[in-house]
């Protein structure tokens, strides 16, 4: 909402400066967004007079003008056809920034003639949206007069109107709050009724659903035309385009009182009844829909913007011709067929009240956001119907002449807000604000509330324009915001008992631990969108209809992600295209298996794009085994039972390389993680170059740590006996996982064998085709006595036998 200081002063007696007003507005909840001060913008621009204008020697369309300026006579090249000797206009010197062109003037020849500045049009000064030629100003302006003064421009205040306060969409409403806040005195806003000279010849009929109350009157014999300069200036200052006096008056009152009106050219009305009813077309016209069958028929209106709109049953339609011909969308926009023009002599003025929800819906269906629609959708004061009409009548008679009919009213305004009981002590209780009751009452009264009764049970009636006020908390806000939030105390929160074990749940702690662990191990944390494209989602087992957004921000972000990996793959590919192919990324965030709350799972995903920098020490590049090491380390930090994990090779999801991926699981239904090389086809589909390695940890699948009453750990039992280690080399089928052999070996004697680990894998000379040699180091921990050679021999025998059960033969 924009307004000017002079406009505000129509309603507020004040000496406050623009800055004081802006500060008071901000602290009362009218959040000022900008103050546009043309005096700053147009400081270098001044009034000049053209002394002579001659054709440019080398250009037909240019003139070389001698111009009398504040700095003496200047030669200026001008392309405007209306540049002529004697014209008073506006000039910009060299060095001036011309806002409408977004250029700073520099001295340069125009077709060989140096131009010492520029003669300006209204649009170049941003004083009009468009203009034809340079400005033509009254000849009585002195040369050197600042442009701002010559054009009557003043500072415009632009502020954000919160949706609860439609009354701030009128300057009078702003003045009321500023007066309450102590910035000035509110002027009398009452409206004097204009008596009618004859009965209104047009009858109004309303369907209460479409339009609860509708007032109108005919004014005969008006003379329409361009509105007077003061009115045009006032509208232009806030960015409105003057049209003609009748229309300008409705716009003025819309912005002055938040009271939208509409004017019809009575000569163009058919019949003598104007009715407000619901639209007769089918509900919701959308592409591809089959036209709905009877009883609805299609109904359309060509509105004042020249566009044709389908009128659905959710819309208020104004119609003439016995209710048959639509001539307006109630509260939104009038129709082209009955609009007022300069030839209008008889005008019918509409002042009605339309339901906010219906008007908002009509705005959405039609895409129209007019000043009227904006106001009615937020809620216009229903009690302003007749006063608004009287105000318009007075202005029309004043500016256009004519003879008014009596006022015709149909329907009933909705009931005003109900009175309720208010204990002023609640101001202290809710806001903590110590303020005398008399001050609270004074604030409420200044804002238009009626307060009666005595403490502790005051009766408060909100004014008709404050339909947002429903209860005592609203009144506390009114008192507190006018008294000023600066006056609120700063009161420490009462101490509460703290959870002795910290505030995070196991899941929250795991996310934190995972984050710090992976960052410490060389992965950079990324945060990527929760959405991806539906096609990509399908590659990762997602893309269900329920997870597709109806209104995505971009087509490639139209579906909730089933996995974090596609986002990390695309991020790594983007980095590679920039010349950084060695991404090591992780993300901890949600994935979505469905649209129910429990379908959202927390995943820790990491991705490695292996890229071996050449190294003098031949240190290996990151491979799947180093990734596996990172993953197992992570799982251990997260409290997963790592020793019990099975590595289920070849069972991971299809976006992994089938031969180079595995699940880490406690059982087929308890999968804690998947890892592997990513499938080349998936990478190709995402336009990424491989190989890339990745893992996904399903945080909720990790068993919750057991809650124990005490934090003591089991006693540490240290054997006094030295462990010993024995190496075995086995031959086993090349495609048999080493894990099978290790598991068998470790299980050969659970009491004695403390660990078994593969330390060499060999295929080639000396090993039969189709087999591989696995060298296993077995650590033996004697329990109660040193082992004799014979006992060690026996253990070795058991180990070899156990290995044979999985098809491994001791290599001899």
């Amino acid at each position: 909402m924009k307004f000017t200081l002079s406009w505000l002063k129509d309603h507020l007696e004040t000496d406050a400066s623009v800055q004081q007003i802006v500060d008071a507005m901000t602290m009362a909840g009218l959040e000022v967004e900008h103050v546009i001060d043309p005096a700053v913008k147009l400081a270098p621009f001044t009034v000049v007079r053209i002394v002579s204008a001659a054709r440019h020697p080398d250009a037909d369309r240019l003139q070389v003008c001698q111009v009398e300026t504040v700095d003496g006579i200047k030669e200026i090249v001008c392309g405007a056809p209306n540049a002529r000797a004697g014209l008073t206009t506006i000039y910009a010197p060299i060095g001036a920034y011309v806002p409408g062109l977004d250029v700073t003037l520099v001295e340069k020849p125009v077709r060989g003639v140096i131009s010492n500045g520029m003669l300006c049009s209204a649009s170049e000064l941003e004083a009009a949206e468009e203009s034809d030629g340079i400005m033509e100003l009254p000849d009585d302006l002195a040369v050197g007069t600042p442009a701002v003064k010559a054009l009557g421009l003043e500072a415009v205040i632009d502020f954000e109107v919160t949706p609860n306060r439609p009354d701030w969409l009128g300057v009078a409403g702003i003045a009321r709050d500023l007066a309450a806040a102590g910035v000035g005195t509110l002027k009398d806003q009452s409206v004097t009724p204009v008596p009618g000279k004859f009965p209104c010849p047009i009858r109004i009929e309303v369907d209460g659903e479409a339009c609860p109350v509708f007032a109108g009157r005919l004014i005969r014999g008006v003379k329409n035309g361009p509105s007077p300069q003061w009115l045009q200036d006032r509208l232009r200052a806030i960015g409105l385009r003057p049209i003609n006096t009748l229309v300008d008056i409705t716009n003025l009152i819309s912005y002055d009182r938040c009271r939208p009106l509409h004017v019809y050219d009575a000569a163009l009305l058919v019949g003598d009844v104007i009715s407000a009813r619901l639209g007769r077309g089918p509900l919701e016209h959308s592409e591809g829909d089959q036209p709905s069958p009877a009883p609805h028929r299609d109904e359309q209106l060509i509105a004042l913007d020249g566009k044709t709109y389908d009128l659905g049953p959710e819309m208020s339609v104004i119609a003439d011709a016995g209710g048959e011909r639509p001539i307006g969308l109630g509260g939104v926009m009038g129709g082209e067929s009955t609009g007022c023009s300069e030839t209008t002599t008889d005008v019918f003025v509409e002042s009605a009240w339309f339901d906010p929800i219906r008007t908002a819906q009509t705005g959405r269906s039609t895409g129209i956001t007019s000043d009227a629609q904006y106001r009615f959708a937020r809620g216009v004061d229903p009690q302003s119907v007749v006063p608004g009409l009287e105000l318009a009548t007075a202005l029309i008679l004043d500016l256009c002449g004519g003879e008014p009919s009596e006022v015709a009213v149909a329907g009933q305004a909705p009931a005003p807000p109900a009175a309720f009981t208010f204990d002023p002590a609640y101001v202290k209780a809710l806001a903590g604000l110590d303020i005398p009751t008399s001050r609270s009452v004074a604030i409420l009264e200044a804002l238009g509330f009626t307060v009666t009764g005595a403490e502790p049970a005051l009766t408060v009636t909100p004014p008709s324009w404050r339909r947002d006020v429903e209860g005592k908390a609203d009144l506390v806000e009114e008192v507190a915001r006018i008294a000023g939030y600066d006056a609120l105390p700063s009161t420490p929160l009462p101490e509460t008992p703290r959870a002795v074990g910290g505030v995070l749940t196991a899941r929250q702690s795991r996310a934190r631990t995972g984050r710090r662990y992976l960052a410490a191990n060389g992965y950079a944390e990324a945060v990527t969108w929760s959405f991806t494209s539906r096609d990509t989602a399908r590659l990762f087992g997602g893309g269900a209809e329920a997870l597709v957004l109806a209104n995505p921000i971009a087509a490639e972000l139209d579906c909730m992600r089933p996995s974090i990996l596609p986002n990390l793959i695309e991020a790594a590919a983007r980095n590679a295209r920039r010349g950084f192919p060695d991404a090591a990324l992780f993300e901890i965030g949600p994935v979505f298996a469905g649209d129910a709350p429990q379908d959202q799972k927390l995943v820790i995903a990491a991705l490695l794009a292996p890229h071996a920098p050449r190294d003098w020490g031949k240190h290996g590049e990151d491979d799947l085994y180093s990734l596996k090491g990172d993953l197992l380390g992570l799982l251990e930090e997260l409290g997963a039972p790592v020793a019990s994990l099975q590595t289920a090779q070849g069972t991971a999801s299809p976006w992994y390389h089938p031969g180079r991926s595995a699940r880490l699981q406690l059982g087929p239904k308890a999968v804690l993680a998947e890892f592997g090389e990513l499938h080349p086809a998936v990478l190709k589909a995402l336009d990424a170059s491989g190989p890339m390695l990745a893992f996904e940890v399903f945080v909720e699948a990790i068993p919750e740590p057991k809650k124990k009453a005490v934090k003591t750990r089991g006693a540490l039992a240290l054997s006094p006996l030295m462990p010993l280690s024995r190496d075995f080399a086995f031959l086993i089928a090349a495609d048999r996982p080493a894990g099978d052999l290790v598991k068998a070996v470790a299980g050969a004697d659970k009491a004695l064998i403390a660990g078994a680990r593969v330390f060499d894998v060999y295929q080639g000379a000396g090993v039969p085709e189709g087999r591989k040699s696995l060298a296993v180091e077995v650590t033996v921990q004697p329990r109660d006595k040193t082992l004799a050679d014979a006992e060690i021999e026996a253990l070795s025998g058991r180990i070899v036998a156990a290995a044979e059960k999985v098809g491994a033969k001791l290599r001899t």
Partner: protein
Amino acid sequence: MTDLTQLQADLTGQIAAAADAAALEAIRVAALGKAGSVSALLKTLGAMSPEERKDKGPKINALRDAVAAAIADRKAALDAAELDARLARETLDLTLPPPPRRKGSVHPTMQTMDEMVAIFAEMGFAVAEGPDIEDDFHNFTALNFPPKHPAREMHDTFFFNEGPDGERKLLRTHTSPVQVRAMRVGNTTPPAPWIAAGQEPPIRIVVPGRTYRMDSDATHTPMFHQIEGLVIDKGIHMGHLKWTLETFIARFFETDAVTTRFRPHHFPFTEPSAEMDVGCDRSGGEVRIGTGSDWLEILGCGMVHPNVLRHCGIDPDVYQGFAFGMGVDRLGTLKYGMPDLRDMFASDTRWLAHYGFSAFQAPNPVSGLS
């Protein structure tokens, strides 16, 4: 009888000349071994008369000890020399680079989130969570957004297509739906264990999480992070809200110089409502907090609307409290000076390395936030 003095002189000379451990050992065997020259002398003691033994015994033993000591000294000297030689051979060129090692980092949004949670945890707040895909009830209706009210449109909501049950799910536009879950007295078994369950007052929680709005420019992204705060108890008023946020902001920006102000605003779910500004300096094209005379809006807050309490089954005449919500990414960019919010989610490895945090900078009350 061999001349003991001569023998000692001979052996000492040989020992001193031994070039290595093997030569020294050969000398030791030749002198002190079973058949060695000194051992042979020692063996002669047995055949001597007591008088003779009394005279020769100490001399021969002294000879043996002197030779043994000379050998030990020489051995120590040879060992030291050999070690020196080995160490010289083992010299490495330490100007060569170490094996390449990736440097990991924590994302600034997550670091900021951890900082915020640490501050509020110290003030007695627990951490609650809720789903990103919400329903109209939790995101709007229960939060006192009237159906079809323009305030809903201001949220630029992402919607899903209508389901078979006619319900249209949405992406939460704020973390406030978790307020509703945490306050709903009847919500005793949440849909998943990690989702907030309803609790009786007193309630003191913060809710960090992802939020979504259809918006994209330098200061808006379609996904962003919020942290929500909620305090419900008897006698909680706006003064407590003001203290909590003033305290938070000073701790977050780690300066007592930060100034704040509260302005009236409107949110459907709070009454009275406020926005909080921090004092800043905008000259020079960047925003500096804790100095200057400009104001920058950083969060919205207010007293929980009686209708919201009623929706959740809490009697507003008994309990009242406050709520606040702020943009985590945005506060992170203000504190750490990233110019464009969109870069937060672009995963440029150079950006992550520059603006990311070390794993060991976990915010905690002992060593500070950053």
